C-alpha cells in the first residue's frame, strides 16, 4: 500500500508540476503553541476568554510566571488547587510555547 501510494503520489506530483502553475512558495505552519494552548480552552473558553479566568491577551512573562508559580506549590499546601498538578504536567519549553501563544490571542 505504502509503496503504491508513494508511487502514485510521485506520479501525481509530476503531473501537477506539468499542469498547474508553480506551487506557492511557502506553506504556513500553524502558530507555535496553538495546539498545546488549546488544552486550556475546555476550562477557560475558546481563545481563553471565558470560564474560570480570562487567560488570553496578557504578556507572555505574566502568563509564564504564573504557571511557574503554580508548579512550585506542594500537595497539602493551602493553595493546592486543580491548576497546580495541571501545570506540573508540562515541560518548561511547553509552558513557554503556551504562554507565548496565549499572549498573541485576543
Amino acid at each position, binding site marked *: 500500500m505504502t509503496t503504491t501510494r508513494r508511487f502514485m503520489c510521485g506520479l501525481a506530483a509530476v503531473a501537477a508540476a506539468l499542469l498547474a502553475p508553480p506551487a506557492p512558495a511557502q506553506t504556513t505552519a500553524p502558530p507555535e503553541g496553538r495546539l498545546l494552548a488549546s488544552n486550556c*480552552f475546555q476550562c477557560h473558553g475558546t481563545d481563553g476568554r471565558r470560564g*474560570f479566568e480570562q487567560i488570553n491577551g496578557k504578556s507572555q512573562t505574566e502568563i509564564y510566571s504564573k504557571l511557574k508559580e503554580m508548579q512550585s506549590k506542594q500537595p497539602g499546601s493551602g493553595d493546592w488547587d*486543580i491548576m497546580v498538578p495541571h501545570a506540573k*504536567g508540562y515541560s518548561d519549553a511547553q509552558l513557554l510555547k503556551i504562554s507565548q501563544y496565549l499572549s498573541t490571542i485576543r
Partner: protein
Amino acid sequence: MNYTRRTWLTAAGAVGFSAALTRCGGGDPLAPATTDAASAPLADAARSTRTAPTVVKSTTGRVVIVGGGMAGMAAAKYLRVWGGSGVQVTLLERNASYTSNILSNLVLTGQRTLSSLVYSYATAKQAYGIDIQQGAVTAIDPINRTVAVAGRTTPLQYDRLIVAPGVMFDTLIGLESPEAKDRVVHAWQAGPETTKLRNQLVAMPDGGTFVMTIPKAPYRCPPGPYERACVVADWLMRNKPKSKVIVLDANPMPTAERHTFETAFYGIFANILTYVPNVSISSIDATGARVVVHTTVVPDGPVDFIGDVVNAIPPQRAGKVVLENGLAPGGLWAPVKPATFESTVAAGVHVIGDSCSTASAVLPAGVPKAGHIGNQEGKTAADAIIRAFRGLAPDTDVVINSACYSPITASTASWLTAVYQYDASGNGYRMVNAPASEATNPTADGYQDMNTWFNTLMGETFA
C-alpha cells in the same frame, strides 16, 4: 473488509490523478489559490499580530465527521476555526440534538432535568459554517474515500474522515429480552434510560436496596460510576434513609479518584453503602419480584446480590460503525496513531473519542475515555488534518489533558486532573506524575467550580 485484496485491486486498476492528488495530503492543488485572508472571520486571531507571509498556501480539503458528540463536535469546530473556510466540514449525526452524559447523574437525584443537558447543533452550524446533517453512516470505503449514508443513493466523498460514534454497550447475560432491558437499565448514555432510572429510584420503597455494577476498565468516564454511587447514596440518605446501596465493581479498586471515593464510601456513606471490588457478573435474573445479580467475588466465590433497583453498567466497546467497518480489528476499540488519531488500519480515517484506543504494548493504559479528553482529541485530529492538507508533518509536541469535577453529595464536588504527554517513541501517551491528582476533599466551592467547568466545556464544544 479485506483491505489487502482491495488495495491490490486499486493499485492494479487506474486511479485518476485527481483522486491520487487529494490522497497526497496537499488538498486540491488545482483549485484557485486563496489566501488565509479570505477566511478572515474564521482565521486564527494570532495571524493579525504576526508578520504575514508573502505567499500563503490555502488550506483546502473535504472532511466528513461521523458523530456529533464531545470529540466530533470539537474536531468540526477547530477544523473551521484553524483551517479556514477552505476546509469543508460535513458532520453526520443520528440524533437531532446532543444530550450530555456529563452531570447526568444529577438527573437521578432530581437536581438537574434531562432537558438542561441538551445541546443544539444549530449554534455551531451557524457560527462556524459546519454542514451538520442528521443521518446514519452505513458503510465506510477507505480506499475510494467515501461514506454511504442510510437512505441516500450517492455516497459522500472525503479527503479525510473522522469517526467519533462513542461507545456501544454489551448485553449482560439475562438481559437479552426487551422486558429485562426495560427493567435493568444502564443509563450510561444520557437519555430515556436516565429518566427511567430516576423514576425507579423515586418508586423504590424506603428500606429498598439499590445495586449498581461497574465494568472492568476501560469504559466511558472512569470516575462516573463511583460518582453515581455517591450521589445516589446521598439522595437516599436524605429521602429514603432505611435504604441500602451495593456497588459491585469488576475492578480491584476505584479506577479514578481512589482517595475521594474510598473516603466517601468508608466515611460519610459507610452506613448506607457497601463497596464490593473484584466482582464478575455471571448473569442477571430480572424475572422475579426483585432482581437477582449472580456473581463470583474474589476471593469469596459465588455470591448473589438482590436489589429492588438494579443499575447494571455493562462492558463497552467501540461504536457500531467502527466495528462494522473493520476499524477495530480486535473487536473492542479502534487502534490509532497517537499523535494524529489516524487509524492504524485505514489511511485517511481518524477515530477519536471513546471509540479509539491510544494504548500499545509499551504504554498499555491509553488515554481515558471522557468528554473533556474527547474534546482535546478532536482538536488534535483537526490540527493533524490541517497540517496534512498543507503538506506538513504532524506535530509531535502533543498533550492531552484531563480535568474533571465529580459531585459527591448534593452540595459538594471533588476534582481530578491528569496530563498525558505524547511519548516520543510513538507508542502512545504517558501520564505525567501518575497517579492523577485529585482534590484533598469534596467542597462546596468545588461544586460551584464543577458548574463553571461544565458550562465552559460545553460552550467550547457546542458554541
